[in-house]
C-alpha cells in the first residue's frame, strides 16, 4: 500500500473556511471520501474524543487530529490549510495552519495503513517537509509532497 491510496486530491483543501478548531474538525471530516466512512458522525465523535484527551496540535503550526473509529471503513487522510491560523491549544501555543486529519478503522484489517501513518508521523518532525507543505498552495502540490514520503 502506498500513501497516495490514503490521500486523494478531493480530500485536500488549501483554504478551510473554519474559524475554530471544532469547526475545522467537522469541515475536514466532510472532506474524507464517502467510501472510507461508514458513519460520519461516529467518526467525528471519536476524533473529537481523542482531541479532548489532549490536543493534537504538535507545534510548528501543525495539528494532526486523528481517531480510531467504528465509523471508518478504510483508513483515510484529509489535509487542510488555513490562512488565518486556528487556536488549537498546541504544544507550543502557536496557531495552526496545516491540519492532517487521520481516520483509521477500529478493527485493523492488516497494518499497512498504520505503517504509512507511522512514516507520515515521523515525517512531521522534519522541518523541510513542514516548510514545503506550508509553502504549497494547490491541492496537487500538497498531494505531491505527501506522496513522496
Amino acid at each position, binding site marked *: 500500500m502506498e500513501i497516495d491510496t490514503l490521500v486523494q486530491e478531493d480530500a485536500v483543501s488549501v483554504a478551510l473556511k473554519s474559524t475554530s478548531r471544532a469547526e475545522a474538525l467537522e469541515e475536514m471530516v466532510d472532506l474524507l471520501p464517502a467510501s472510507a466512512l461508514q458513519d460520519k458522525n461516529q467518526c467525528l465523535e471519536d476524533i473529537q474524543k481523542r482531541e479532548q484527551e489532549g490536543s493534537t496540535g504538535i507545534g510548528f503550526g501543525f495539528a494532526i487530529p486523528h481517531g480510531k473509529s467504528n465509523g471508518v471503513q478504510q483508513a483515510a487522510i484529509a489535509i487542510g490549510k488555513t490562512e488565518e491560523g486556528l487556536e488549537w491549544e498546541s504544544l507550543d501555543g502557536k496557531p495552526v495552519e496545516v491540519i492532517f486529519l487521520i481516520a483509521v478503522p477500529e478493527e485493523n484489517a492488516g497494518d499497512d495503513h498504520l505503517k504509512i501513518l*507511522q512514516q507520515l508521523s515521523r515525517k512531521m*518532525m522534519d522541518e523541510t517537509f513542514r516548510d514545503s507543505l506550508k509553502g504549497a498552495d494547490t491541492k496537487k502540490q500538497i498531494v505531491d509532497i505527501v506522496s513522496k514520503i
Partner: protein
Amino acid sequence: MKLVGITSCPNGIAHTYMAAENLNKAAKEKGIDIKVETQGSIGVENELTEEDIESADGVVIAADKTVEKSRFEGKPVLEVASSDAIRRADELLAQFENKEVATYSERSGKEKAKEKIEEDKAKKKKKQNPVYRHLMNGVSYMIPFVVVGGLLIAISLSLGGEPTEDGLAIPEGTFWSAINQLGGTAFNFMVPILAGFIAMSIADRPGLAPGMIGGFIANDGSFYGSEAGAGFIGGILAGFLAGYIAKWIKEVKVPEMIQPIMPILIIPILASLAVGLIFIYVLGAPIAGLMEAMTNGLEGMEGGSRILLGIILGAMISFDMGGPFNKVAFLFGAALITQGQPEVMGAIAAAICTPPLGMGLASLLFKKKFEKDEREAGKAAVAMGLVGITEGAIPLAAADPFRVIPSIMAGGMTAGAIAMLGGVADHVPHGGPVVAVFGAIDNVIMFFIAIVIGTIVTALLANVLKKPVVEGS
C-alpha cells in the same frame, strides 16, 4: 553516551512515532547513540534487547500509558509524556548529559524518579484515581477469559443442554460437553487473572505471582473449608492485598547483595505467602461462617413474606455473581425445587440474568459511561445473560464496583420481587431466558416481565450512578 527509549500514546497512531523520531533527531544532533522502542497500534517495534539496555547509560520513557519498567532496574530513567519528546527532546537528552536523571530502582528509586516528572504528570494523575486504574488493568486482562468462557458455556448449554433435576446438564462424553469444559477452564482463570493484573498494576511484575495465587485461593473455597469461594470480590481484595504487600516489601531497604533477587524471588514469595495465608487463616473462616449464617437465615424465612424473600434472593444473586452470597441463594432455591416449592427458584432464575442483561444494555445505550473494553464485554454479557450466566457482568462490576453493584442489585431485587408476585416457578436449578425455552418455567409471561423490568432498572440506575469515562488508556 548511549541511551535507550520507549514511546507510547493512547491511540498509538501518531504521537508514538513523532516522539520517537524527535528523540532520534535530537540525539543525532548531540552525537548521542539512541535506540527507541515504539509501542504503537502496530505493536512493539524496534524492541529493546537485554544487551541494549545493559549497555545504555540511561532510559527515556515518553509515554501516556503505563510502561513496564522492571527491566530498567538500576538505570537512570526519565519518564515524561509523549508530547514532551515532541516539544523538547533536546532538553530531555540534556538532562542525561548533565546527570540530572535519578536512578530507577524497584525498591525506592521509583519515588525519586517520579518526583522529577511530578509536575508534568500532576494533571493526568488528578484525572484518574489510582484505585480505578488498578481495577481497570485487572479487568482488561480478565475480559478475554470471561468472554471465551461465557460464550463457550452459553453455546454448549443452549445447543447441548437438557433440563434435569440438577440444572441444565450436558450429557457426558458428547461434543458439547467438551466445549462446556473448555469454557469452564477459561472461567477458572477469570478471578486469578483479575487479581494478578490488579497486583501487577500496583507493584509491577513482582506483584503478578502473588496476585494470581491469591486470586486463585480467594476463588476456591476448599482452601478454607467453605462451600464457595469468595468470588470476584475476593479476587479484587486478593489483588489489592498482593499488590500493596509486594509494593511495601519493595520499599524495605535491603543490602545491595540481595537487591537483584528481590523482584524475582523475595518479593513474590513473601507476598504470595502473606496473601495466601491471610485468606486461608484469617478471611476463610468468616466467609464460611457467613455462608452458614445466610443459609440459616433464609431457611428461617420460609413461610414468611414471599415478596421479601424474592427481594432478598434477588439481591444476593446479583451482589457477588458467583461468590458466597450468590451460591447460598442459588443452593437454597435449588433445594426447594425438590421440596415442591419451585416458585423460589423462579424468582432466582429471573434475577440470575438481570446483571449481565442490564449492564449489557447500559453499555449499549450509555456509551460515554464505559471504556471501550467494557463496551465489548457488555455485548458478550448480553449473550451470557440470555443463558443465565450471571458472571457475564463481572468485568463491568469489577471495573467500578461501588456504582455497578448497587445497580445490579436493584435490578435483581426488582426481578426477584416481580417473579414472586407473578407466581413464576422454575423446575430446573438454572436461570435466564434459556430455562423458559426448555419449558421449565410456569407463568412464562410474568417471568419475562420480571426479567425485562429488572434489566431496565439495572441499566438506568447504572447510568445515573456511573460517571463518564475520563480517559481511554
